[in-house]
């Protein structure tokens, strides 16, 4: 079978991902950059589908597209008139950064081409079995990271509320006591 033909879905998805990622980095208007993240995340979801990781297709759309992107767009709205698109969007270090990134990419390419690739003989399990195995690992082997993730999310939630509501003194906690209720205001 022609290899270009069978690789067509992969090529389409990688073109979508890389193309929109480049637009995110290049575009001057930050709101446009935010919206161009959408095709990029969807392209990565498509690549997960090609990799038969069906659960992660859903999670990618749910978390990255549904939640993180929305949070970023809200943050863009909150920081009003953040950056005039006519002002320079980049700092003055373009040349060293460019050289560094080219060296980095060359290093990655050297590692990838230097390695002897063998074809994978791993069996790809059906989606429901894969997700069940993931759940088993989460409950059994990864129980501690699982609970720590919960603590991390709690810390993030509390911290972000403190940061976002910092302009006011925290309201005194309304603790209704039984004694204060009946005779506080006689009418």
């Amino acid at each position: 079978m022609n290899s270009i033909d069978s690789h067509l879905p992969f090529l389409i998805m990688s073109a979508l991902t890389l193309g929109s990622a480049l637009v995110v980095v290049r575009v001057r208007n930050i709101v446009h950059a935010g919206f161009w993240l959408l095709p990029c995340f969807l392209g990565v979801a498509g690549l997960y589908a090609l990799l038969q990781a069906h659960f992660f297709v859903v999670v990618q759309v749910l978390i990255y597209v549904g939640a993180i992107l929305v949070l970023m767009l809200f943050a863009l709205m909150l920081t009003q008139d953040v950056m005039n698109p006519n002002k320079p969007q980049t700092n003055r270090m373009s040349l060293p950064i460019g050289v560094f990134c080219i060296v980095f990419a060359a290093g990655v390419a050297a590692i990838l081409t230097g390695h002897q690739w063998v074809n994978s003989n791993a069996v790809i399990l059906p989606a429901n079995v894969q997700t069940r195995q993931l759940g088993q690992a989460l409950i059994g082997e990864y129980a501690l990271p699982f609970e720590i993730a919960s603590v991390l999310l709690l810390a993030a939630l509390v911290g972000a509320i403190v940061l976002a509501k910092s302009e006011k003194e925290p309201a005194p906690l309304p603790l209704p006591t039984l004694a204060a209720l009946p005779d506080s205001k006689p009418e």
Partner: protein
Amino acid sequence: MPAVPTSYYLGLSGVLFTIGMIGVLIKRNPIVIFMCIELMLNAVNLSFIASGRHFGHMAGQMMVIFVMAIAAAEVAIGLGIIVAIFRTKETINIDEINLLKY
């Protein structure tokens, strides 16, 4: 249908990571820097899932679910900090924010 080799996915992940890294290093707006960090995290997730499929092991997918949880926490806190800085200093230009304490 012959599967796409794992090395293609890893190469794609490397390119996406480099694009994100360029954005992180070169941009002035911290929200755009966060977007580029998300690109880098997506690239790493992609390489985790590709490697997990290559070796037929659960650990790759397990890492991705934790990376996503941490990414959500990081975005929530990071953007909260940016919003707080904007409200006290009226700017979020990364070159003008040089004080830890104000």
